[in-house]
């Protein structure tokens, strides 16, 4: 099965972000394809490398980065939602004249078209949200 995953909630506040990760990992372990994970709304906050949770807790952005490395997973953060919430990569930093960037390893910033395209190409688009 070809899945696409949509994550609409931020890390640590809402279980949707954890469930999306667990679903994606389980699907990949069972040999399914996950063609893209798209982060929208507060979900874009899953993609900042500046996150520093207490040591005895899970590290949500790092967990995604590692999964992306292992499975060549495409992690896409919506540019419009990211701009509103201060999630920035090098290109966005330059274009908007910001003094820093914070995108986590394995994530990329792109447009909403990536979500629509994933919906067209996948057999199932699975949403994790409120």
């Amino acid at each position, binding site marked *: 099965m070809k899945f696409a995953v*949509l994550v609409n909630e931020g890390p640590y506040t809402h279980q949707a972000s954890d469930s999306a990760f667990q679903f994606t990992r389980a699907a990949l372990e069972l040999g399914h394809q996950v063609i893209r994970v798209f982060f929208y709304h507060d979900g874009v906050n899953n993609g900042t490398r500046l996150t520093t949770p207490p040591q005895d807790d899970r590290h949500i952005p790092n967990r995604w980065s590692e999964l992306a490395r292992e499975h060549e997973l495409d992690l896409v953060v919506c540019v419009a939602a990211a701009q509103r919430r201060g999630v920035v990569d090098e290109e966005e930093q330059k274009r908007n004249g910001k003094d820093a960037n914070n995108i986590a390893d394995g994530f990329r910033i792109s*447009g909403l*078209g990536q979500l*629509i*395209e994933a*919906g*067209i190409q996948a057999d199932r688009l699975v*949403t994790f949200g409120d």
Partner: protein
Amino acid sequence: MNIGNQQQFLQHQNLNEERQSGIVKKFLYINRRAPHGTNYAQEGLEVALIGAAFDQEVAMAYLDDGVFQLKSGQDTRAIGTKNFSATYRALGDYDVKRVYVERESLERRGLSEDDLMSLVYEDEDDDWEEKPLIHVVSASEMQRIISESDVLLNF
């Protein structure tokens, strides 16, 4: 076009060039939340407008508190947030021809179709005549519309 900055417009143009050929799916955007208080409605509308550029069949569904999104005469000045409600009028220009509003959700909130903004599209197959975009449907019709759609996006 009042959906954001110029950059977003350019992005939208790029998407036009990237659009998929061949596969046409039925996308249904399901809106269940009030327009203000959270930004799900605003960002949901942005997805629908971008998505309409992809040569897919796009329809909108408004139910539960989502019916408030289409209420006419919204004014956000007192809460200091952006009043994006005029953007709904762009739906018709973006080739969205079906906007379904659940009757039971309206009635439970003391609303009727007369309380909603008037949304229209120009029908290219009928000499560009302006036609109403909003269709008030029953809960069971809504159920059928949802089950006949291929891709559901809930906001």
